[in-house]
């Protein structure tokens, strides 16, 4: 009787990287090898395969080890000449020999007014440096192939390799409310005024995010849409479009002006991947009359 043998190569269903089938976890994104179909929900969401405690990822000559399960730590072993960048408040510890300095960013004033971190920090190897966020959740490793781009909601990004270019763009997701005719309108940004955009250049790169709670991903077909809570959005492919959607449940009076008479949604439209986190903050919608919104905003009155 012949003994079944493992295939020569294993293709990670999460990030697409090819790896040795005898590995216990994918060296590119850390997801366990041999992820079963059970991680998909009936509705089509894929639960992020939890990165095994102490799983190691490789980028260039450097490594990243994911440690812990409740509030995981990304422990990066930088080789000489390798570089990562990050927002400074995520720094947990570092070897004394690791050099840390500010990374120049364009649009400092705009970032300041938008509440984005004004300073992006970069660290140079050799040595160890570790990062964590102050919230229970999951660490997500996203390997970026050359030329691949991904959009990430603000304050979700943890660390990226030096080969990944960083940019940011205006989301154009906003609405205005007005309490009285004498008052000026107040502008709200449900997913923030800006989003981070990461693109791998000539070399592949690694992007590490932190999702609060659990993380779920689905791939939308061209034209396929789904409504998600704006603050649950974690990241999306650049091809995925976004617009606001207001929904008014039946049997309510809009004149009540309470949050309960208006649901605020983010409509995402394929093609491409979209990821959500299960723990998200509630949006403060005072329920006042809408005074302004982008042209592509939609509404539904039941």
């Amino acid at each position, binding site marked *: 009787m012949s003994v079944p043998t493992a295939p020569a190569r294993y293709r990670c269903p999460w990030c697409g990287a090819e790896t040795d089938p005898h590995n216990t976890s994918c060296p590119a994104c850390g997801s366990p090898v041999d992820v079963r179909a059970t991680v998909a929900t009936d509705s089509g969401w894929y639960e992020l395969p939890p990165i095994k405690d102490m799983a190691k990822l490789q980028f260039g000559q450097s490594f990243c080890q994911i440690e812990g399960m*409740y509030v995981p730590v990304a*422990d990066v*072993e930088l080789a000489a000449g390798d570089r990562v960048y990050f927002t400074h408040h995520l720094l947990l*510890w*570092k070897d004394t020999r690791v050099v*840390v*300095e500010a990374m120049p960013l364009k649009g400092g004033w705009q970032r300041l007014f938008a509440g984005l971190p004004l300073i992006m*920090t970069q660290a140079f190897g050799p040595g160890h440096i570790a990062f964590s966020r*102050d919230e229970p959740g999951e660490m997500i490793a996203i390997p970026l192939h050359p030329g691949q781009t991904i959009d990430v909601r603000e304050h979700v990004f943890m660390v990226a390799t030096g080969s990944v270019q960083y940019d940011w763009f205006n989301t154009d997701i906003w609405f205005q409310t007005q309490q009285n005719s004498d008052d000026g309108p107040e502008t709200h940004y449900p997913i923030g005024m800006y989003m981070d955009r990461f693109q791998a250049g000539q070399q592949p790169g690694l992007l590490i995010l932190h999702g609060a709670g659990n993380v779920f991903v689905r791939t939308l077909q061209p034209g396929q849409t789904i409504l998600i809570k704006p603050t649950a959005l974690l990241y999306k492919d650049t091809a995925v479009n976004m617009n606001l959607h207001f929904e008014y449940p039946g049997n309510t009076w809009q004149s009540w002006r309470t949050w309960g008479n208006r649901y605020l949604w983010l409509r995402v439209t394929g093609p491409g991947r979209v990821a959500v986190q299960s723990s998200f903050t509630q949006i403060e919608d005072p329920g006042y009359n809408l005074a302004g919104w982008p042209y592509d905003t939609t509404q539904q009155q039941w």
Partner: protein
Amino acid sequence: MEPIQRIQCEWCQSQNPPNAVTCQACGARLDVKNLVSDSGWREAPRLKDMTEISFGASTCQMEGEIVPVAEVNLGQGDSVFFEHHVLLWKDDSVRMDVMSLQGGMKRALAGMPFIVTIATGPGRVAFSRDATGELVLLPLHPGMEMDVREHAFLLASHHINYSYTRIQGLRNILFGGQGMFMDRFVTTTTPGLLLLHGYGNVFERKLKPGESIMVEPGAFLYKDSTVTMNVETQKLKTGLFGGAGINLARMTGPGRLGIQSMYLHHHTE
């Protein structure tokens, strides 16, 4: 071949009978290998739900995994002390007293608990803190001296002497992320049990004499008193705004150092 007489716990160094699956002193599993990162940090033992340990004539059972509860079954005459806001429930029979502390005004001004409470058996009393994290059991052998971040200790057995130590240096006080004082726990001739709660995951590293590591001050959880802590500010210059700085604590050995991966301070009072 000589049969194994005793198993030494690699977390707390206590001796256990050869058939033990978990350490009787700290609850660490003896049948799984340690989780140690390449950089040398060891994860605190992940305690199995409902793990029970004993100290003196009492037992302590760890319940739950996300926000775990420490349930203590106090023997006659045994007692534990704690900050009153971590108390979850207790039997009627458990007597409650207030521990006399020196420097009450200084403690009040420094934001430390003004009152430390003592629960005396017989009876059951349970404790938990209001955040996701891990319970860390540190059996203290005679002659040990341990410094703990303020408000991080959950309970200690009455054989342990409790005091506090002032953090030296204005920079350490202002930028150290934990105020003016640290709790200090000392054992003399009798061993004791110290139970901490770390936010998120807890990691420990043994620093060699003179070895240093830079740590986010808010992540510091505990250390042997031989480990020194000095906060250093590193300037991050930007052309537009003149620069900002990050504060990191230089921890220098010899001794153990414990950190927590979630370092936002949760006010519970």
